[in-house]
């Protein structure tokens, strides 16, 4: 394991991410701390999606919902004068988990396109709900008066401290994800994705496992939402727009579905590409669109597929 090309890539990637603030400092380009922090936040969201998409076979086209719930948890508490980060982030995780439980309970009964569309529909509902709540800015959203506060731990106003916190969470989730997919639980959801009738025939009731995975994924994405609103210092229902769900999905596919590093890589490439292309031409979407099609058609394993892997079974 330690010597496999992917492990080396992971190590190199982590090292590079860890050095970003140092490099930014040396080059006097603090912007890159912000940019890479944003990338890592979306990487967390993409990673959470991949747990159910890549490993569980659940094509959720509404993952932006949890990004929104997490963001609203922080934004709403701040709005009411509660800036305590422990409280806010717990609520973000808990709230997303509960919403995921409700959405999942209905959605997982369906499959295929129905699942895609019902997750989309639920997210649309939440999006319009967000737009309608005037108290929290409606469509305009509202500014976050202060970033979440962690007295005695760290200060999110410090760009570097915030950066390393996000990096820490990303690494933690990578580790948790790795344990999860290899543990008994992960084997069940992967088996159900591979062949659900067979999984049922040997005695698994996939529904409970899939629902649990869905909730875990939602909770993780909720934390990403809490991070995103702190990054942006702005709360907006735009976080829940359906194209956002599509983008997160694209990050997963671009990087490599059914792997843990893939979504991280995908988030980085997608956001950097967007940044570079949109600075280059206003018609950047005419490049991004066909690029997306080509990735889907010809690079099924995503970018991570370019890095050789020892025959890791089961996926």
């Amino acid at each position, binding site marked *: 394991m330690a010597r496999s090309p992917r492990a080396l890539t992971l190590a190199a990637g982590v090292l590079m991410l860890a050095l970003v603030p140092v490099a930014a400092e040396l080059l006097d380009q603090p912007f890159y701390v912000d940019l890479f922090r944003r990338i890592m936040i979306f990487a967390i969201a993409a990673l959470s999606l991949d747990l159910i998409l890549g490993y569980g076979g659940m094509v959720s086209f509404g993952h932006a919902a949890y990004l929104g719930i997490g963001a609203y948890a922080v934004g709403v508490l701040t709005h009411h004068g509660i800036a305590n980060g422990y409280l806010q982030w717990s609520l973000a995780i808990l709230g997303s988990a509960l919403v995921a439980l409700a959405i999942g309970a209905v959605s997982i009964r369906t499959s295929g396109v129905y699942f895609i569309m019902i997750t989309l529909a639920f997210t649309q509902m939440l999006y319009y*709900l967000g737009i309608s709540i005037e108290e929290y800015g409606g469509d305009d959203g509202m500014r976050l008066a202060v970033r979440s506060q962690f007295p005695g731990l760290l200060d999110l106003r410090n760009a570097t401290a915030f950066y390393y916190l996000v990096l820490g969470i990303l690494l933690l989730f990578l580790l948790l994800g790795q344990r999860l997919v290899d543990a008994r639980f992960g084997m069940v959801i992967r088996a159900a994705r591979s062949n659900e009738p067979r999984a049922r025939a040997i005695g698994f009731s996939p529904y409970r496992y899939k629902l649990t995975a869905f909730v875990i994924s939602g909770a993780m994405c909720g934390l990403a939402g809490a991070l995103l609103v702190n990054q942006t210092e702005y709360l907006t229902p735009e976080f829940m727009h359906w194209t956002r769900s599509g983008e997160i999905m694209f990050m997963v596919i671009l990087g490599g579905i059914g792997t843990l590093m893939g979504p991280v890589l995908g988030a980085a490439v997608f956001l950097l590409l967007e940044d570079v292309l949109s600075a280059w031409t206003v018609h950047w979407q*005419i490049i991004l669109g066909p690029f*997306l099609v080509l990735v889907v058609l010809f690079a099924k394993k995503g970018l991570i597929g370019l890095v050789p892997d020892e025959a890791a079974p089961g996926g």
Partner: protein
Amino acid sequence: MILLVLEQTLNGLQYGVMLLLMAAGLTLVFGIMNLVNLAHGSLYMVGAYLATGFYQWTGSFLASVALALAATLVVGIVVEVVALRTLYERDHLDQVLATFGLILFFNELIAIVWGRAALYSSLPGWLSGHMQVLPGVRYPVYRALVILVGLVVAALLYLMVTRTRLGMLIRAGASNRTMVAALGVNIRLLYTVVFGVGAALAGLAGLIAGPIYAVQPGMGEQILIQVFVVIVIGGIGSIRGAVVGAVIVGMVDTLGRAFLKPVLSIVLSPSAADTAGPALASMLIYMLMAAVLAVRPQGLFPVR
């Protein structure tokens, strides 16, 4: 009041018809090729642009309709052959993403060719009046025509699916594609034709929409999601489901917008009804869809 309810019912029907024109093509393509085509909205947009362009060029509304229909059919066939054909055997995830990419491409292409500003599109004089449906109920002629067109298309689709050889192949293809192939039918050609028909239907919806809505890049996505709600409620792949779903969604959405607030204000305070009414009205069709799927996970008319 009764006249108003009647008029709103007519409005709901008319909106349902617009949704049906889109939904029919989408559900046809799904039912037969098992393809989730998010770019269906792009074909709708193409139809609207071409019709607007042809109208300005020819000066004849009817000629522009005919030309735009034919042209959208061609565009649909080209898209099918170039990009979508390879997606039939892929899973839904790939289809969703690739066609999402196509949306970006088409929107930008249209923006490059026609600019980002909304186009001027209007009705010929003979269609812009209104008629007396019932004493006290005036209805725009064009909207009445839309209802008529929708009913005709629905009838034609029904006949095509139940009475023609193509329809038979379509039904057979939906249930057993190897069998159809074994019968010596060129299945590739069949798929291309079906996709072309679906595209033309989307184009028809688009060109009808042109004079009522804003003709601009991205116009397809605004209606697309609602169309998905329609076919999901109806049962994906079922023409009958699309018809029923479209009418239900059209009615629920229209009547919700019209009467939800007054009804709510009976039970709630006026200001609460002011807030809750529009919020609920915009979520109504999604709630309906969730409710339908909770009870019937395959929609109202499951295909398989």
